[in-house]
């Protein structure tokens, strides 16, 4: 039996509405300007470096992203 939490259609719609809400100019700027911790920046740069090394061209990156997104969509709990 799966113990992965799932969402009802109503909860999913509510979550999507929250994720797609339009921020005010102040809220938006504050989110953009939020400081990075040193660890966060290091981890992110390492991720960028890995992605560029593993998929050196734009075509390879787009192809990989399509594959990974399809995989995630088919495996995500409903």
């Amino acid at each position, binding site marked *: 039996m799966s113990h992965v939490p799932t969402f009802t259609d109503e909860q999913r719609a509510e979550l999507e509405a929250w994720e*797609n809400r339009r921020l005010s*100019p102040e809220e938006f700027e504050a989110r953009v300007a939020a400081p990075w911790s040193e660890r966060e920046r290091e981890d992110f740069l390492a991720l960028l470096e890995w992605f560029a090394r593993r998929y050196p061209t734009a075509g390879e990156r787009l192809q990989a*992203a399509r594959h990974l997104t399809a995989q995630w969509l088919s495996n995500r709990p409903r």
Partner: protein
Amino acid sequence: MEASKFNEVEFFRAIATSGARALLIGRRALIALGLPVMTSDYDYWIAADDAAAFNLALKPLEMSPTRSPEEARQTGRYVIEGDEHVDVLVARGVSTVDGTMVQFDDIWARRVHLTITDDVSIAIPSIDDLILTKKFGARPRDADDIRWLEVLRGSKP
């Protein structure tokens, strides 16, 4: 369920050879630049007069527009659907969340080409302009994308 027949290289080739001034924007452009993010659709900003050419190019891939070019010009956006979903912006200019007017022609003039295969390339906005387009919708994830684009811009030699 039948597998999708969609071929991304042929999709980009059709657009590149259509004659339409079309910029890939949104998260696919971020991915092409080197940001590992996820998305399920394609976002394009095209010249207001080029919707017919853009639609015609995608017809052989069994992709159809939800609005005629005339209707699309009035509303400023439309969708092309088939095995994939393409959001198309056709406005001549769009305002950012902080009120800056961004003109397609300016962004187009500063576009960057990225190679997909030996004979196919895509046009995307420069990183600075991509950041501006991320200020149109002003959703939380657009702000996050700008943070990541700024780091990417800083990491480029």
